[in-house]
């Protein structure tokens, strides 16, 4: 872009001042106090407005308040690839009182092609970066490649201030990384690891608890079965006992049957028949003998027969074998069982009842134990589940940590590579301009990732502060030209040089002035000086 002309209504000491700019090298050679610096400041204000509040004495607004008290402001005509424009601004006591109007010089009509943020829109950099590159008031040496300059120094394809975002991006990644942080006690990973370690002991008990639970359940089952058997036995014994008590014979009944001290066969009820037969035969004999005794001999023969029958019956009775061991009589039996059987049954019942009582006590204890085991198992299962969840989360978090590390590391690599791909051309351009300006071979310069110029001196890389003031000014100027080359590969902006060679010696001055003439073919240079010897 090119500056065409400007009209200063009131700006500091300058009042009603008109200036038409040479398209290549515009030289303003005026004595000190003329207002060269004020002119430079006016040009800056036309593009970037005036900073500050006039109530503050150190502000630019206060410094350039019109001496004559008039309205501070003016007009500037410039040309860009979009056309020729005229910007008119006035500056009040405070920024909100400022005015801005842009006209299309071709039509004379107001246009919205650019806004009040004119400088940023045209040059793509902020005020500070503008001051450090295209605009200089004073020494050319205080040049620092701001983030905006670094951001601007890129190929034309990029359209965002990546490098400006770089530091913020690293900060975001670092903050996320720290919140996860394995090493930090407050980090999520560390907290989860601690929780896992607390719970894993409980979870590990699950298998043992389950085994204990199963064994206890088996015991209970067995006891239940055994209890059922015992219960059935008790019921049988109880019934038996009840039966024994109802069957026991009364004392009178037992007296009806005389006790027989012997167990021989005589008392064997099986011997009663022969004596009865003998008696019958005897009766018959008597009946037959009575008539005989009465003289009736006819009954003699029957009497003889009856006598024979008596003999035979008696002999039969005497000839029977000995009876076997006598079965005790019913009375004897009843008298022997109640004492022993009852005792035995009662004893058995008591024993079974005791066993059942023991079982009941054991069941009650098992019941309590199983409840406790259930609770412990539930705790162990919950702990196990939580541990499984923690492990999954830890895997995820460690992966996130890894991703954050990779992202940060690759961002750094990208930045270094990004800068190195512009740094080298930048260094090359700087060295070229330094050589042009100084007229001699440049010392060993290098540049860091932030595009700061460094010089190798005494075996170390040092800032340009170690250079003499003249050489420092040269380096600053060369840096500006190099930055302009890198920042504006196509349409070049103007360059304002406000007596940049004041500290040069004659030889150096000659070279610089020669270089300025050459460079004005590439850049529109507004050159201010207060001494004729420094006019290119």
């Amino acid at each position, binding site marked *: 872009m090119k500056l065409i002309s400007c009209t200063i209504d009131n700006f500091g000491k300058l009042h009603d001042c008109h200036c038409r700019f040479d398209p290549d090298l515009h030289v303003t050679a005026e004595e000190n106090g003329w207002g060269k610096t004020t002119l430079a400041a006016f040009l800056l204000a036309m593009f970037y407005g005036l900073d500050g509040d006039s109530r503050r004495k150190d502000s630019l607004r206060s410094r350039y308040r019109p001496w004559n008290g008039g309205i501070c402001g003016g007009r500037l005509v410039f040309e860009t690839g979009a056309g020729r424009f005229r910007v008119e601004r006035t500056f009040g006591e405070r920024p909100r009182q400022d005015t801005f109007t842009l006209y299309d010089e071709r039509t004379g009509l107001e246009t919205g092609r650019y806004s009040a943020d004119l400088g940023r829109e045209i040059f793509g950099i902020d005020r500070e970066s503008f001051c450090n590159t295209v605009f200089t008031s004073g020494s050319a040496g205080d040049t620092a490649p701001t983030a905006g300059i670094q951001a601007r120094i890129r190929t034309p394809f*990029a359209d965002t201030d990546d490098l400006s975002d770089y530091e913020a991006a690293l900060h975001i990644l670092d903050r996320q990384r720290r919140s996860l942080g394995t090493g930090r006690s407050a980090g999520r990973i560390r907290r989860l690891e601690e929780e896992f370690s607390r719970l894993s002991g409980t979870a590990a008990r699950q298998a043992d608890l389950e085994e204990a639970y199963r064994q206890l359940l088996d015991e209970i089952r067995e006891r239940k079965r055994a209890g059922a058997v015992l219960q059935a036995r008790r019921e049988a014994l109880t019934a038996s006992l009840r039966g024994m008590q109802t069957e026991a014979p009364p004392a009178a009944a037992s007296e009806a049957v005389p006790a027989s001290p012997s167990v021989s066969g005589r008392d064997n009820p099986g011997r009663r028949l022969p004596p009865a037969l003998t008696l019958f035969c005897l009766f018959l004999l008597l009946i037959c003998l009575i008539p005989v005794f009465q003289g009736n001999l006819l009954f003699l023969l029957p009497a003889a027969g009856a006598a024979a029958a008596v003999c035979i019956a008696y002999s039969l009775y005497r000839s029977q074998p000995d009876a076997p061991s006598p079965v005790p009589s019913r009375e004897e039996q009843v008298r022997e069982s109640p004492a022993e059987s009852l005792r035995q049954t009662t004893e058995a019942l008591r024993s079974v009842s005791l066993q059942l009582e023991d079982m009941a006590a054991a*069941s009650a204890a098992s019941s309590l134990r199983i409840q406790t085991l259930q609770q412990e198992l539930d705790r162990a299962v919950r702990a196990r589940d939580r541990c499984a969840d923690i492990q999954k989360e830890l895997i995820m978090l460690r992966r996130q940590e890894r991703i954050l590390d990779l992202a940060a590391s690759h961002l750094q690599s990208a930045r270094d590579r990004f800068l190195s791909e512009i740094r080298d051309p930048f260094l090359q351009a700087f060295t070229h301009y330094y050589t042009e300006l100084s007229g001699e071979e440049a010392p060993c310069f290098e540049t860091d990732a932030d595009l700061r110029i460094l010089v190798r001196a005494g075996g170390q890389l040092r800032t340009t502060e170690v250079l003499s003031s003249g050489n420092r000014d040269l380096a600053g100027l060369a840096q500006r030209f190099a930055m302009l080359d890198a920042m504006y590969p196509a349409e070049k902006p103007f360059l304002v040089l406000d007596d940049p060679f004041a500290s040069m010696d004659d030889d150096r001055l000659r070279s610089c002035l020669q270089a300025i003439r050459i460079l004005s073919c590439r850049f529109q240079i507004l050159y201010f000086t207060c001494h004729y010897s420094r006019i290119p």
Partner: protein
Amino acid sequence: MLKIIHCADLHLDSGMETRLSPDRAALRRSELLASFLRLVEFAAAEKAAAVLLCGDLFDRERVSPSTAAAFCAAIRRHPQILFFCLEGNHDRGVFSLPWFEDLPDNLLLFEEDWTVYTLGKGLRIFGALQSSRFASGDFWDLLTPDPADMNLVLLHGTLTTSAHPDLSRDEIPLSRLQDRNIDYLAMGHIHAPKSGVLDSRGSFCYPGCLEPRGFDEPGPHGFVVLLIDPDMHSLSRRFVPFARRRAFRIRTDISGCSSVPEIIDQIRRNLERENCGPEDMADVILTGSLQPQLTGDMAPVLSALRHDYFLLRLTDRSKDAFDAGRYADDRSLRGYFVRSVLRDSTIEDRDRQAVIRCGLLALQGESTDLIHETDQLYD
């Protein structure tokens, strides 16, 4: 005509704390028990003669005393109904617990040997607990239902057509049950309703579980009502949906969504289309491509939707819609960064997209607590 209810896999006292908060898990456990109690009341109202409980009535052999008491009390309250209860693989031995000391008289259990009950005239109910004997042909030969009767058989396991069932996986050989005069094979173990033909005479049926316990049990849940006429030798059945809550698993493609509100709307539309309501549980699986401007953090999506449903889970399976080719000639720092990551062969493929997304979002000034993870679970 006899009415019989067939249900299974109630899993009462299930832990359910894997994905539910303790409060929600406790609520869900009480709902399982409530569903069983409702089932018993339903059986009473329908004047059912019997209820077949075909296994896994409880979730494990550990049951709380209160659940045991509620279970027994519900059964005892209806002495006119017989409850035939078969233990499953999860609750084997549960009735040995001290809190089942005094079982209701109308609760009838089964053993490892075939147990037979007669219900009325001409209706017999067989059942056996799963054991290693299932692998033996002799065991099945002991099952000899009379062809003149109506025969119901209760079993718990997975019916298989394999000749060599894998007992460790609770398999039961179907062939051993065919042509044995079985009219109805009442099964348990599979949690979704399923039925089929057993042979020329009978059929088998899994009623599924009464309530879904998780998102892996979507679909209808309830029990089967059998109408049996032993005289006419007829049997019909119908499924009764009965669950208090339903479970849904819904896929939602978020490829066309360029903002979090759009993702929320898309999910809501899909849930409404499936008729998923405030009492239900939904597992929403996000698929498709995640647009580059989105951070991949779905926590705000879950937060916006979770209170509209009893339980909502998001599983993010979306992929990064990242076009590396776009940065091939990009000379900005972004371009250098993307190319640097793509060139790094030490980065795993699944991490590569995440690294790029993370770096680009950081350059945008986006700070998220989360890296976009596929299969990331939000609940």
